[in-house]
């Protein structure tokens, strides 16, 4: 029996060994099959071998230098592989504590440590300089991942680790100086910056430092726009200490964990530095769009942004519309006093307003600003009249906002209701009206809403809109001439309409009823007795102009 067992055991052994060999072969075969050339395959094998040797014993530390050499080559595959291998090697060394000089070390040992450190620095340089700045996105991405990995390893290995000394700040600096729309920065933002609080904290610091140093103009511009895009990718602001809990590094010491206060201060500094570096119009808009919920909460003293906002508000156009929300934030939260606010607000009601894509945002705020019942009736009347005038030439979506808003205004300010119902009782005046008719007393070009005489005018425009071509809009406009029994319309329901929405609601549903068909078949559509009729001619024109 024992003999049998032995045979069986040996059998198993025998079986295992060939299996392993086969697997290896299979692996190598696979590699051969992979698109890389045979030469690449050799390099890979070589790198793996070198790495294995380093891990085997310290005698082969010189291989590190070889790998470094390899990584600096400009060949396609080898540098990446070498870099990955080196990263693994250094992580092991860091974890094993081989790179720390301790007291009881001999001379030789110390030399080795110093040498290793030197190589490590060299490796980092390679990653930062040649990898990150090359044109190959894959390589850049590898460099980013490796560097972040090394940062983590370092933090694990060393007690009281300070990110400032590590490769992170250099990495961020490098990222900031990369050209605009670089995918790596987005990757960094997505994977690390948004996720880990310590990385974020350190990034704030680095941004501030970098923009504080002397840079030439183009670099400064680049860094500023890049930092802006980084900062804008943050969409949540920590509310309390409990929100700061995701860390990339694994250090036990408390010193590297920022308090909320410090954290916010750093963020504020970073934002200020970015803003000071100069912004173009688009960037300004981008900041203003997200201002009240992404940026202002970071600031310990939002008052510092007052000038920025008032300047933006004075720019005019869409920028002003956007600045309005930030300004409102400051006015309501921080007691900002903005002189002649309504004058400015009135000036925002221009031709483009109802066509603007920020329309709903503006009306939301306008509704807030005009919600007070203590506003002078003349001012409210000016707003009503001006908006009605704009609605007359606006798209249906704009009309749909203006009409309920006007209704609410009339309801809130009964003094303005004369605008829709005014009976002339003075006989002399009546006679004059009969004879001469009347002109609109409203002055569209007047800038001061108190002086426009709108309260003397009437909203003929809204009446005209009652015969709007779109049935829903026309029906809605009719609420102005019906009895005001409803308390108010919820403006929010009317804000987000568009041509597309109007069309989709109709065209996407099935026909429920048979559509009407004109009972009379016209004898002519395009043609006339001789040749074409006007419509036909126009169509002919179009066809020919093509």
């Amino acid at each position, binding site marked *: 029996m024992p003999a049998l067992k032995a045979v069986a055991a040996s059998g198993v052994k025998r079986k295992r060994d060939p299996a392993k060999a086969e697997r290896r072969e299979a692996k190598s075969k696979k590699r051969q099959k992979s698109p890389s050339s045979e030469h690449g395959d050799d390099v890979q094998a070589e790198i793996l071998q070198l790495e294995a040797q380093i891990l085997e014993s310290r005698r082969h530390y010189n291989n590190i230098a070889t790998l470094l050499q390899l990584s600096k080559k400009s060949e396609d595959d080898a540098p990446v592989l070498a870099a990955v291998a080196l990263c693994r090697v250094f992580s092991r060394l860091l974890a094993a504590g081989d790179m720390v000089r301790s007291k009881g070390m001999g001379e030789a040992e110390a030399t080795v440590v110093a040498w290793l450190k030197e190589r490590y620095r060299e490796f980092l340089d390679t990653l930062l300089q040649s990898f990150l700045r090359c044109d190959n996105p894959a390589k850049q991405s590898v460099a980013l991942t490796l560097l972040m990995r090394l940062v983590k390893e370092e933090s694990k290995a060393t007690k009281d680790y300070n990110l400032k000394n590590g490769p992170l700040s250099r990495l961020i600096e490098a990222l900031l100086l990369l050209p605009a729309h670089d995918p790596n920065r987005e990757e960094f933002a997505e994977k690390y910056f948004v996720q880990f609080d310590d990385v974020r904290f350190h990034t704030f610091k680095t941004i501030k430092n970098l923009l504080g140093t002397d840079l030439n103009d183009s670099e400064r511009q680049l860094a500023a726009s890049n930092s802006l895009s980084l900062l804008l990718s943050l969409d949540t602001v920590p509310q309390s200490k409990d929100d700061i809990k995701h860390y990339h590094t694994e250090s036990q010491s408390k010193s590297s964990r920022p308090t909320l206060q410090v954290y916010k201060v750093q963020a504020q500094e970073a934002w200020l530095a970015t803003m000071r570096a100069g912004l173009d119009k688009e960037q300004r808009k981008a900041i203003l769009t997200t201002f009240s919920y992404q940026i202002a909460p970071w600031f310990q003293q939002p008052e510092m942004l007052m000038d920025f906002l008032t300047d933006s508000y004075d720019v005019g156009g869409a920028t002003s519309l956007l600045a309005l929300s930030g300004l409102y934030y400051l006015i309501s939260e921080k007691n900002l006093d903005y002189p002649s606010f309504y004058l400015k607000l009135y000036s925002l009601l221009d031709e483009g307003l109802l066509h603007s894509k920020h329309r709903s945002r503006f009306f939301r705020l306008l509704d807030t600003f005009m919600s007070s019942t203590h506003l002078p009736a003349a001012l409210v009347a000016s707003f009503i009249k001006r908006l009605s005038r704009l609605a*007359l*030439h606006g*798209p249906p979506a704009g009309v*749909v906002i203006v009409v309920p808003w006007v209704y609410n205004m009339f309801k809130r300010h009964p003094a303005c209701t004369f*605008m*829709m*119902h*005014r009976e002339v009782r003075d006989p002399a005046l009546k006679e004059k009206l009969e004879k*001469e008719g*009347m*002109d609109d007393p409203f002055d569209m070009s007047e800038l001061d809403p108190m002086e426009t005489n709108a309260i003397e005018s*009437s*909203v*003929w425009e809204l*009446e*005209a*809109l009652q*015969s*709007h*071509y*779109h049935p*829903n809009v*026309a*029906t*809605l406009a009719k609420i*102005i*001439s019906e*009895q005001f029994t409803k308390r108010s319309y919820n403006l929010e*329901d009317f804000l987000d*309409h568009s*041509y*597309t929405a*109007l*069309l989709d*609601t*109709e*065209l*996407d549903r099935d*026909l429920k*009823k*048979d*559509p*009407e*068909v*004109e*009972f009379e078949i*016209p004898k*002519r*559509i*395009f*043609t006339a007795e001789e040749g074409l009729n*006007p*419509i036909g001619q*126009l*169509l002919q*024109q*179009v*066809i020919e*102009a*093509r």
Partner: protein
Amino acid sequence: MPPSQLKRLKASLRDQGITGPQKSKKEKKSQNKNASHHTQKASALASIRESFNPFEFKHLSRPQKFEYATTNAKPKVLGRPGVTKSAGEETRRKTLLPEMNRKNKTGGILDRRIGENDPTMSLEDRMMARFEREQQRKRGGNVFDLEDGDEEVELTHGGQTLRFDDEIGEEDYDAASVSGSDHEGEDGFLKKKRRRDDGEEGDAEVENEEQPERKKSKAEVMKEVIAKSKLHKYERQQAKEDDEELREELDKDLNDVLAALRGHINKKPEPEKVREVAQNDFGMNADRAALLATMSQEGKDKEYDRRVRELFNDERSKPTERTKTAEEKAKEEADRLKELEEKRQKRMRGEPISDDEEPSKKQQDEDDDENMSDINDDAAEFGLAAPPAPGQSRPVGVDDEDDFILEDDLVATDSEADISDEESESGAEVDDTMAMDDDDADFLKDVVEQPKAQPKAVKGVLTIGADTSSSRLAYTYPCPRSHEELLEVFKTVDLKDTSTVVQRIRALYHAGLKEDNKHKLADFACALLDHVSYLSNQTPAAPLAVIESVIRHIHSISRSYPVQIATQFRKHLKAFQLSNQPTPGDLALLTAIGSIYPTSDHFHQVVTPAVTLMARWMGLTTPSSANDIATGAFVGALCLQYQTLSKRYIPEFIRYTSLCLRSPHATKPLLSAHTRNILTAADLWSGSPAFIEIFTPLLAPLKSAHQTSTTQNLLARVNNAKLTRRPQALHHHRPLPIPSRIPKFEESFDPTKHYDADRERSDATKLQKEYKRERKGAMRELRKDANFIAREKLREKKEKDAAYEAKYKRLVAEIQGEEGYEKNVYEREKRKRKGN
């Protein structure tokens, strides 16, 4: 104020005759002798004593101050505590006591008689319940069998079953003959009466009478009935078979008859036999005779009535409609047009059409529901629901629900066209086929030319003569069901002949000819629609006259297939919405929509999206080339054409036109097209209250484009509008009533009632009160039960004790007696001895 206690006592004593004027000794004596008088007196006294017991009745705590007569006056005696107490005691003794006695005991005899232990049942109830149970048990298990029950419940008299059936006569007769009772006279009369009714049957019964006199059981009677009905059935079958035979014989002779008709007679038919058979049924046909024979009198009458009604309702019995004179026709036509116009007006105003108020009401309901479900969304009320939830709301006042009711001669009936051989009918049918209308005469002449000339073409017999204009064309084509197929068909056809070919296909595949043709024609129309777009998109484009004729064909077909064609149109619109680049094809389709559908409707499933699309294009694009400007001119003109009747305002038109006027690409003819549009628009919207504001923005661009005459014209119109402008007065409404805040007073307020408007709350309080009352009552009952039990126990104990005491005493007495006896004996003995 009631009299005092003493007075009342005296009064009642006097009433009872206990006190009274003094009686003579004689009277007294005679009274005293009578023992019953004594007892009477005693009982009277007892009742008086009882009635004067202040605890026997519960009175009001304080007597009422005033006497008043109201309907719901409170009774003077509120309750009789003594009576209730004793009643309670009694019930307890009946229910609780046995329970108490049975407590902790097993076994014993249970009285299971129905209702025996139920004090709520009266003796009669008990008896009734027992009787029911007995009956049920007799019936044997099946409680739900109603039929059985009828049979089983037998009424008896003197232990004999009462009978009301046919055999009552004989029964009674038997009884009479046997007993010779005095009921005989009456029974005899009954029997006579029955005899008169039954006629023959009576005879049979007379025969039966001769059989041994024996009471027939129910089963036997039933058997007889069954046998009788079987016999009838058999007879009927027999008759039927005879008829069959006869018919077969006749059929056999049919050949001979036919031969005779053809002229060579082989054999004579046998009329005698037929007559013989017919004689039996008085010359009726066999079926009818059989019918009459089998049916009961009532059935016959019913059948007769039914047939008469049928005849009455028969179409043929109506007089045909008189042919109308020319004036009448013209008047009718005018009326029809007027009605159609009225309907159009209504739709334009967005009112629901009175013909179908129901759908609109339903819609209202739907709207209501909707409002209930999402009250918060104000926008949804106006059909401006957010796009993610499409189709849930209809715009208010939009009357797309209404049905445009066309008269028969207008509607292209896709129902079965009558394919008869009569020439006169086929003419009318052609009308139907082509959806012809009298005022479209000339259109139809060229559209329906062929079928009208050769009416047989419609009937599928293709004998169409060669037409001079299109002699090269084939007469039959496959019906194209998609645009690809259509292109295949039209590949060989000259553009000019498109109309003729379409016409022929329509005639060939008329819906009345085949079931399937409906779908074919609908698909064909959709393909034609695609073809319109295709034709205009081609380079060089097809002549507009051809497109026009195709559009008119589509118009004609769309009367029969409105849904399919509208859906196809909407598909094209959707495509245009996605591209937002109007091709000539799109423009041609938009024009087609304008001519096919009523553009003045407040809402229309095809027109509204089409206008919105055009407006969107004009609102969102800027003219960047001459082509754009030309397209703009066309779209603008088309939009204005859409609004010819309804005169609706299109803001985007103003925007795009002014942009075009300013555009550097604008050429002179394009500019003039635009200015023409502006003047048309000014005409259309001259009634608009905001005319000045609408057209003022156009003045500057017009001036800069050097269109002086138009500028002058427009300026004059604007100034004119200023003259007619008045301050706005939109709210000539009846003033809203101020809501009343006066508290509501209750007439005839009753403080004991609750006037809670909130029904739920009042119900809840009611329930709570009831609960409290019940709880109190239950507690009181339990307390009384406990008292009763304690009392009973005490009584038992006392009894026991008393028994024990008695026994003890008896024993002691016995012993003492014995002892005394013994003592006596002893004494005696002692004395004896002493004495001795």
